[in-house]
């Protein structure tokens, strides 16, 4: 267990090093937050209640998603495993007396922790200064939010890990990653909140695992869940469990298939 903790800690240190790049990233995330906020406000101006969101909820939603991009890894198509399979460095990973999936989960947790520390708070704070938002002041929603975010990261990791594994068969995960990223961007609610999606599209989007990466955590924070907190967390937990289990099964299949060349 200690080895995974160390892997996470070292990964955290690796990701927290680049301060000026972080500043550039925060500026970018916040600026895009403003553009998206104006676009959604124009929509809510025409119709003050969409789904169960009012205009303040929509703006809060935008800045929360902008803040969560880095920790949840919304724009990351794959994990660090993907490029390592492509370059052959995975031979070292397979050589370690560790579980491959847990190892990369640990490094991804380190990455997420650094992202959370550096890039989540500024867009949310700046957004709530510039616009009327509906962030709760009570501690309970924030507690629930953090539980839900942890599960969101697990789902996000599980999907990206599966994408990385495809490189064992295709030699290059980038094609699969870019295709799945497009789907993820849409169904996570990154482009437009899932509450705005009508009819069957909305039902489909809410049932898919990607809704558990952004929409569900944000709804637990804003109190705009259509289901109870327990149901929301169970939904996230089930998807995480299924996807992680699938990852384990594919990992062992890949292990049996892979031949490490040379020496």
């Amino acid at each position, binding site marked *: 267990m200690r080895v995974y903790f160390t892997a996470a800690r070292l990964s955290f240190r690796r990701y927290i090093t*680049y301060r*000026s*790049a972080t500043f*550039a*990233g925060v*500026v*970018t995330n916040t*600026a*895009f937050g403003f*553009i*998206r906020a*104006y*676009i959604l*406000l*124009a*929509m809510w*101006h*025409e*119709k003050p209640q*969409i789904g169960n969101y009012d205009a303040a909820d929509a703006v809060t939603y935008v800045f929360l998603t902008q803040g969560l991009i880095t920790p949840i890894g919304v724009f990351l198509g794959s994990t660090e495993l993907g490029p390592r399979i492509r370059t052959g460095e995975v031979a070292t990973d397979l050589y370690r007396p560790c579980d491959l999936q847990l190892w990369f989960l640990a490094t991804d947790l380190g990455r997420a922790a650094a992202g959370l520390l550096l890039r989540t708070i500024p867009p949310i704070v700046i957004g709530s200064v510039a616009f009327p938002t509906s962030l709760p002041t009570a501690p309970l929603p924030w507690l629930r939010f953090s539980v839900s975010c942890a599960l969101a990261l697990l789902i996000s990791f599980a999907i990206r890990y599966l994408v990385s594994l495809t490189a064992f068969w*295709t030699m*290059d995960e*980038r*094609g*699969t990653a*870019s*295709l799945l*990223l*497009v*789907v993820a*961007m*849409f169904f996570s609610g990154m*482009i*437009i909140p899932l509450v*705005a*999606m*009508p009819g069957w*599209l909305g039902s489909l989007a809410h049932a898919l695992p990607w809704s558990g990466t952004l929409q569900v955590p944000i709804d637990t924070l804003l109190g705009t869940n259509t289901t109870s907190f327990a149901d929301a967390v169970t939904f996230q937990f089930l998807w995480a469990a299924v996807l992680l289990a699938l990852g384990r099964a594919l990992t062992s299949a890949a292990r049996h298939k892979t031949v490490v060349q040379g020496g």
Partner: protein
Amino acid sequence: MADLTPAPAPTSPALPAPPLNPDFTPLPSPAAYLLLTRMWSRAAWQYRASLLLTGTAQMLSTCLDLAALLVMYSQVTTLAGFTLPQTLYLYGTTRLAFALSDLIASGIENLSDSIRLGTFDVVLIRPVGTLAQVLADQFTPKRFGKLIPSTATLVWAIDTLPITWTPLKAAICVGTVLCGTVIYCALWVLTGSISFVATDARETANVITYGGELVTEFPFAIYQRPLALMMTFAIPLAFITWQPSLYVLGRHDPLGLPDFLRFAPPIVAVLFSALAAIVWRAAVRHYRSTGS
């Protein structure tokens, strides 16, 4: 490991002598650019499956943005007073112009890496213009994928809109895409030049390039007046599609700006390209190798 016996002394210089021919002329930049893009395309073509998948992904990403726009209009009938076909006209022209500029110029996104790694040195010693090399860097035909849905959207919007076409309107419609492409290319070069000053700032450039695209997909009336004015006069995003499209769509400017601005895109494109060229030259002179 290496053979430890000493290598025989070279009898001839390792590098060919520099051309002493007085008639030697470097390849003109446009020709060099085309040559380099062809070379990179052939390299990308070696990984056909990956190219096909990433190309499809580029196409789908445009389609999903379109789907998001349709989702928005499933909830409302107008956005800041603009109907779906009108917004789709803005969206189509923006997307097409941006996709063309992305095709031509987004190689400059690799510049910050090549400055950080010091490989920009190689660009400087080749007898070819620096900008041509940087723009063509790692060109990939997958970018053609973005052209298909954006063209389709624009065609659909033009077909649906009740526009009485005049030769001037048609010329402005074509001109919107052409001038928009030029202005976006200038933005790529200008934001790319930031890398010479602040290597880590690459992500900030995205605000102007990709952010500029997102902004111009929508009617400018949705932005607050000071912001909209800034995006007209400080960064000329309004001239990419918003201003000329007001003429084609036959609308008054909700911001109340004078009508002659609608015909300004060609002038803006020329001025902005000149600015980009000046900044680029200054930036390249500013370059100091990492020297490792």
